[in-house]
């Protein structure tokens, strides 16, 4: 019987500990640098003051949550085509980490909105689309857990990932058009009275790259969890078959 310590688990990234650990260290370092840049290097916005620094977290997280859904879309397509479990594992992990990111995008967006627009929420295209994205992610995860079998769950989830992804741009534009008729006197979260200063833009870019690494690391963690779940399932199955 295989020693579970270095089990070559299918759907995994190969020899786990070293890749994941180095990813964790790189991400950690990048994040520390990012925080330094955000608080020590970034210029203070002349209109909004220090609270504007939330922007360096909120924007990359929001963009990342949409990119994650794109990943879910691609891997869902691949899974429906090839049925390799690995694609489903990546899609699932990306969706779960993605929902964490969208939740955070919404939370930071709300906290950002209050001081800047004097309201917690507004039905403008980006926020509304992010909300819908959150709902579709949740539907994706729900349909996976509530499906009758694991394989059906994977298929249903893939369908939701595909249909949902195609729907998101339509949602965005419909709200843009709606808002042109029902305007509210606030402006989008990325517009500032300062146009984006060179330094600000670079720090934003760096922050974005940091969050890409963070996302990949979190997906790697989640995928390892899934492999462990599968190993547990297999060992339970073996025991049950032996009547224990």
């Amino acid at each position, binding site marked *: 019987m295989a020693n579970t310590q270095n089990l070559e688990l299918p759907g995994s990234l190969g020899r786990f500990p070293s890749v994941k650990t180095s990813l964790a260290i790189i991400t950690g370092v990048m994040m520390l640098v990012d925080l330094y840049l955000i608080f020590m290097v970034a210029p203070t916005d002349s209109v909004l003051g220090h609270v504007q620094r939330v922007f360096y977290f909120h924007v990359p997280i929001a963009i990342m949550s949409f990119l994650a859904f794109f990943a879910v879309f691609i891997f869902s397509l691949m899974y*429906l085509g090839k049925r390799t479990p690995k694609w489903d594992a990546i899609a699932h992990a990306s969706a779960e980490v993605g929902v964490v990111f969208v939740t955070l995008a919404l939370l930071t967006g709300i906290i950002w909105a209050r001081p800047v627009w004097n309201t917690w929420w507004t039905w403008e295209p980006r926020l509304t689309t992010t909300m819908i994205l959150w709902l579709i992610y949740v*539907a994706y995860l729900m349909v996976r857990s*509530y499906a*009758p079998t694991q394989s059906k769950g994977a298929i249903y989830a*893939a*369908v939701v990932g595909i*249909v949902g992804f195609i*729907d998101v741009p339509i949602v965005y534009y*419909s709200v843009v058009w*709606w808002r042109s008729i029902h305007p509210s006197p606030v402006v989008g979260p990325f517009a500032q009275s300062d146009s984006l200063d060179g330094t600000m833009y670079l720090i934003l870019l760096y922050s974005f790259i940091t969050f890409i690494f963070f996302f990949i690391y979190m997906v790697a963690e989640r995928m390892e969890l899934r492999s462990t779940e599968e190993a547990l399932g297999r060992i339970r199955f073996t025991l049950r078959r032996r009547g224990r």
Partner: protein
Amino acid sequence: MGLLGPVMIIVWKDVLLELRSRDLIISVVVFGLLVVVVFNFALNNTPGRSEELAPGILWAAFAFAAVLAMNRAFVRDQEQGGLEGLLISPVSRDAIFLGKALTSLIFMLLVEAALLPIYAVMLDFSALSWTLMLTIFLGTLGFAVVGTLFSAMAVQTRSREIMLPVLFFPVLLPVIIAAVEASTRAVGGETFIGLGRWLPLIGVFDALFLVICPWVFAFVVEE
């Protein structure tokens, strides 16, 4: 075309089944009335505001009714093994999907036809506008196409009552937004051009998902 025959047979059978029992169509119509009553008071629909609120209340009612109707239809279908029977037969998956979607569409249109005159009276608007009819048709088509796909999935899951709404509403939001906007203009007497880009939006949505949904439906029902 080889598709048309099986589709029409499926539709014919399902529609006859629904009309014969009649309980589903009556309950959905009653539900539609209840939704309007609730929304009327929830939104504080005083006489002056009716013009502003009517299209929204109309589409909220239609959307909730559609979810209810499709949920019930698929649950009943599953209990009777209707879908299983179709899957064993040599009918193509596309035909099954289109048949089911068309059945839902016809069912919903009948429900809406029953409700519309009542709404016109309760919410004080003129329903005699062919642009309004067109909007209702296209919007309902969107509900039917996407709803059929999601119902086929939801009915297999553990919590089917909640699964369909959770899938349905986020995806169909653009249709609801566009339908309300178009209806507002239609009721105000606008011609087709006056409806702006809203009706084309629903049209594009319908066309897009009429292609996508049958394709993924095959994966949903495969064994």
